[in-house]
């Protein structure tokens, strides 16, 4: 496991986020300001501000229905935001489609697993490599040398990526036949295959036992260290969030109620109230 985030060394700018020390001289990878979306009369997310450093692991937590997944859907433009802006690596993402957002550098996993279940594990990863392969449909049909070269490279790259989770032995299995935990890991590999600069993980530890979760934590840190990317994760497992997230953002009813390091969040009365309710008589 990589060195734990040291609170003492942190310089608390910009005020609304936590950026690891090593990222301070660089521009942030993601900047959301005043982001919001309405579904009819319901303000699902309102005035959401978040900045994430280039190699930061950030956590997004909150009670059920707080709007965490909605934030992911806004970042990846599954929903177009009603208000606010999202800057990715300094570029405005307004008007982009989900596919364009991915090409700009955001990859994600899903809370309810969305694999290409009839394709093999390897093909799932190769779909992730889609935009790194550059041959046309005609080249593919005619099987020109370029096809063989790029397919060979994609095959090797896919196995290499699968080896992060030690899954290269499963490459030829059908994705839908994998056990639950492996499906979750495959989703992460597929997202990584798109060569992102920001990885969004929606409840990566859901349905995993404590030892699997511990392994996942190590792997998330390993991924960040090897690929030098930022990670934003939604998770209900507090051990995971408090263990690896350098900055944590707490949502409730679509609004940010707290931001800070794990210690700050744990001590924050608003967070405790959101999760446990008000103390009687106070």
């Amino acid at each position: 496991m990589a060195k734990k985030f040291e609170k003492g060394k942190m310089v608390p700018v910009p005020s609304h986020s936590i950026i690891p020390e090593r990222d301070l001289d660089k521009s942030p990878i993601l900047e959301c300001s005043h982001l919001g979306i309405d579904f009819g009369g319901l303000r699902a997310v309102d005035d959401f501000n978040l900045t994430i450093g280039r190699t930061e692991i950030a956590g997004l937590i909150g009670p059920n229905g707080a709007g965490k997944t909605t934030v992911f859907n806004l970042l990846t433009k599954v929903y177009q935001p009603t208000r606010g802006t999202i800057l990715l690596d300094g570029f405005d993402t307004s008007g982009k489609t989900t596919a364009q957002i991915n090409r700009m550098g955001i990859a994600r996993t899903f809370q309810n697993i969305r694999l290409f279940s009839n394709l093999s594990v390897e093909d799932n990863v190769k779909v992730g490599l889609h935009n790194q392969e550059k041959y046309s449909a005609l080249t593919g049909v005619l099987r020109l040398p370029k096809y063989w070269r790029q397919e060979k490279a994609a095959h090797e790259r896919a196995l290499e990526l699968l080896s992060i989770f030690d899954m290269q032995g499963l490459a030829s299995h059908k994705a839908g036949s994998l056990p639950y935990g492996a499906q979750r890991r495959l989703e992460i590999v597929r997202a990584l295959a798109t060569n992102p600069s920001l990885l969004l993980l929606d409840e990566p530890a859901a349905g995993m036992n404590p030892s699997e979760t511990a392994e996942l934590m190590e792997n998330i840190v390993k991924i960040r260290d090897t690929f030098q990317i930022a990670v934003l994760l939604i998770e209900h497992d507090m051990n995971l969030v408090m263990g690896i997230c350098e900055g944590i953002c707490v949502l409730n009813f679509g609004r940010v109620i707290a931001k800070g390091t794990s210690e700050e969040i744990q001590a924050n009365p608003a967070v405790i109230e959101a999760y446990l309710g008000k103390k009687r008589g106070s």
Partner: protein
Amino acid sequence: MKKQTKPASVKKPDGTLKRYFKNMKTATKVDYATYLGVILAFAVVMACQSAGLLNRQVTGMLVPICCYICMAVSLNLTVGILGELSLGHAGFMSVGAFSGIVASMSLGFTGAGDVVRLVAAIAIGAVVAAIAGVIVGVPVLRLRGDYLAIVTLAFGEIIKELINCLLVGFDENGLHIRFNYDGNSVMGDLGLTENGVEIIKGAQGAAGNEKLSTFVAGFVLVMITLIVVLNLVRSRTGRAVMAIRDNRIAAESVGINVTKYKLTAFVVSAALAGAAGGLYGLNFSSLASTTFDFNASILVLVYVVLGGLGNIWGSIVATVVLYALPEALRGFDDLRMLVYAIVLILVMLATHNERLRALLAKVLPRRKGAAVHG
């Protein structure tokens, strides 16, 4: 890591060719087996034909079977690989057939050779059908849901009616086209010169065609269709198309342009149907647009569904069997279609049978993944 991971099994290096075959993916093996099967079937039929074992009824079916194999394989690209229901595939065949006839007759007027005319008919049929595919696909494939089924259904009917009203002729001055929308025009209105040929005569369709299609041409077209579809499926484009079928949202999230790949698959499918139409049109001395009605589209869909969605060799086998079946059932006379329906139901029941499936699983190359448990 968990124990689910099996170490890659070590293979003994026993001969390069054997090892090459062992390391081949199951999908690749199935592809090669499909090609091999088609070539073998072609060789057997050719041998029987030269030995005089085939009667006229069977020889007459050879080219249509090749056409319908191309239709079924190309429809499988839309329905099985892309996962969109198309109910107007015969419409593309119709477009290909009539544009092919126009091309071949026009070239015949200029005195081109038979092979050139046949190839031109197939190529132009494919191109025109591809254009029709773009016209239908661009607005519809942007939508989500069953709109493609509705629009292709309408497309098939519209094409049928349009060709019903079409008068086409060719002479020294080039192509003469007249759209007989009020039903009062006759071929004379085209103003052809004495040497001119009448190609499409409205509701009568195309008559007086020269039969240029041959079984060899049919075989070549089947092989081309197979190569296009199978190679497309095993390429980056095919993976993107199948990813869209399996999960559109996830496909978008990994940066796949959904509309582009849906359109690619649909247009390739339409073009191949047009090529099949081009061959089909030149197999008959007369052809009316009513040949390519809704029933024809459903017939091809039946081949695809019974052959298995996404299963290319299944489509081929289903087409051959189900095309030959009604002919073989001629002895039943009026009850023919009833028996046909019963056979279809029996096939469905049989392929759903546990024992039969277990038997097939033993014979066919084992699908990997079935044995993995959590």
